[in-house]
């Protein structure tokens, strides 16, 4: 690919106008394993494991749920080549800063998942956030934390909190019980101690690391992924009704790739329950107020009706400018281009959703070194 001649940042700064909250770097085969502690490496990597796909996206056998133009020429997997991602996402699509969210392996043993998170963090720091690969200063990383093993999660947060390019803590949505359980309090305590946002991405694991629906498993990838949002809705209710934001008043949580239009009726439902049951509840405020003050949702996947003015109205009623962060989900097949997403937002919400909320949530700079021929989205 054509590369900027020298890997040194421009001395010209440009304003950050697009913060992309959901971007997926992928390790080259074997790259993470070398960072996994010996104790777990022999169990995790000593027998071959093929594809474990359940619930396959269209044409999975050919596209692996990826953008088909995102496969690097060297035969690697989409997201494995930092330079190709830089070209497609930053230069061509025009995301100014990308929040990198690696899919650290979810196992059924908390300590093994924690070992994978430890390794993934080392790998991300050394292969993406280092001065060679992040010469342009457009990558921001996630501290992967195995929330089901709170002690190790806290250790990872403590280890990486001071890193200049680690911008959030990344947990998975599936571990049980839900997040209102006090066993997770040490994780929220570490996050608020360092004032770092906690983001939650879905993980599509196996066995019970899938979101086991209470009434039976879906049949296909579409009824599976559509109903996956109920997992996030349930986590929202747990966080609020179980008082997590009362215990940690500065905690910020981002729900990544769980879709978001359901938050509008969920706020009404929680508020109605609060009105009916206040005397039996320990929380201090109306549930929708906790949503507006503590939660953010990423925009991808943007779901829309045939009449898109209905979406515009829903965005107004939910006060989208308070709760949304732009995201593309590069390099997945469901990629939302920032230019496409932008035109769906009400005018008054555009700056907040496209960059201001992101800058606040992740404590980002307001300008970055310019990149030659970068698409400026708006």
């Amino acid at each position: 690919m054509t590369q900027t001649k020298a890997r040194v940042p421009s001395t010209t700064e440009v304003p950050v106008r697009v913060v992309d909250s959901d971007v997926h770097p992928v390790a080259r085969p074997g790259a993470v394993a070398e960072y996994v502690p010996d104790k777990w490496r022999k169990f995790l990597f000593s027998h071959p494991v093929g594809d474990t796909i359940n619930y396959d996206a269209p044409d999975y056998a050919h596209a692996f749920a990826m953008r088909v133009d995102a496969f690097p020429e060297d035969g690697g997997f989409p997201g494995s080549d930092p330079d190709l991602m830089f070209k497609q996402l930053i230069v061509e699509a025009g995301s100014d800063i990308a929040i990198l969210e690696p899919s650290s392996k979810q196992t059924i043993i908390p300590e093994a998942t924690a070992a994978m998170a430890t390794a993934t963090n080392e790998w991300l720091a050394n292969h993406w956030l280092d001065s060679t690969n992040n010469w342009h200063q457009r990558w921001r990383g996630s501290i992967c934390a195995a929330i089901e093993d709170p002690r190790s999660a806290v250790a990872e947060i403590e280890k990486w909190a001071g890193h200049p390019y680690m911008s959030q803590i990344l947990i998975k949505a599936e571990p049980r019980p839900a997040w209102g359980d006090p066993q997770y309090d040490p994780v929220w305590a570490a996050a608020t101690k360092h004032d770092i946002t906690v983001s939650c991405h879905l993980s599509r694991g196996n066995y019970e690391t899938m979101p086991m629906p209470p009434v039976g498993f879906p049949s296909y990838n579409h009824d599976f992924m559509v109903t996956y949002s109920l997992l996030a809705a349930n986590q929202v209710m747990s966080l609020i009704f179980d008082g997590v934001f009362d215990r940690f008043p500065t905690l910020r949580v981002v729900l990544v790739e769980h879709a978001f239009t359901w938050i509008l009726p969920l706020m009404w439902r929680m508020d109605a329950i609060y009105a009916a049951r206040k005397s039996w509840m320990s929380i201090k405020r109306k549930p929708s107020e906790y949503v507006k003050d503590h939660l953010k949702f990423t925009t991808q996947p943007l779901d829309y009706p045939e009449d898109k003015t209905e979406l515009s109205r829903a965005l107004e009623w939910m006060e989208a400018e308070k709760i949304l962060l732009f995201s593309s989900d590069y390099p997945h097949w469901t990629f939302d281009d920032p230019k496409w997403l932008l035109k769906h937002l009400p005018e008054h919400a555009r700056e907040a959703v496209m960059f201001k909320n992101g800058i606040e949530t992740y404590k980002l700079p307001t300008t970055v070194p310019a990149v030659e021929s970068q698409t400026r989205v708006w």
Partner: protein
Amino acid sequence: MLIDASVHIFCRDNKDFRSFLREPYASRGIPDYEMDWYGAPGGEYLSSAHGPDGQYPGSDPDLVGAHVFEYADIAILHPMTRGTLPDRHLTTAVLAAHNEMMVTRWLDHDARYRGTIRVNPEDLPGALREIEKYSGHPQVVQIGIPLQSRELYGKPQFWPLWEAAEAAGLPVAVHIESGQGIGYPPTPSGHPRTYEHYLGFMALNYVYHLMNMIAEGVFERFSGLKVVFADGAADFLTPFTWRMDTFGRPHLEQTPWAPRMPSDYLPGHVYFVQGSLDGPVGPDIDFAGEWLSFTGKDAMVLFGSSYPHFQNNSADALPSALPAEHRDRLLWRNAAELYGISVPEGANS
């Protein structure tokens, strides 16, 4: 005119309940109506619903009628029972007892009561027997099944039930079953810690069933099937339908038995009881009617009180901004059409 699409009824007590059971079931151990941890702290029922002689709420046709027919012209009864039990024969026997109780004690007592026949989807022969037995009764207007299940209702093992419902011309109401049955924890993250969280999530489980029924082509195969999600949460139909249309569309090649856009399968097939927890809340909500029209919900909602449960709904609580046409549909017109209830000419709410 007002049709209350959700009035919950019970047996008076266990002695009364067992009088409707035959052996070997009459001697079996059977859980009561109440749930343990998920029972509402402070009690499930309106305090006014307990009879003067200690009658179980919702167990006395005259007491219930004195309350419900104050505001309603017709009440659709839905017997609450004892949970999904591990022995499917026993579950069917419990349901059959409640059906007999409802028909003999309520429907035959007052023509304004209409009934929901409870059947067990885990015992199809038993379910088909109950439908066969009661579908000709002029006041039986619906079949009732639990929202709780171990397989989604789109799966083919349930298709004979949909076929029978369609043939009988009866809608199928899916309602949270009371009692301490077996089953999975009520949320995808396991057990919630509070009743309010349980209440908040439990009704949303219908989304799993509905999306699966669409993807499995149930409404394509049974074009006359009508399903009523009787615990409300119709508001969630809109975001989840947007999602199913947007995300689902490229997947339609995987399900050629359900070739249409998912939202095409909703009108005429899907209905919701609208309760006190449903609809936009907040001061000066002026968009209640606009919201109700999204995804065609205005043609799907059926007013339901959930009497004698504490989240009792009242027509007085409807948003003042709801247009008159929406009020009529919600309070009686949708239910009258769905259940084939004739209404006086010129009726309004």
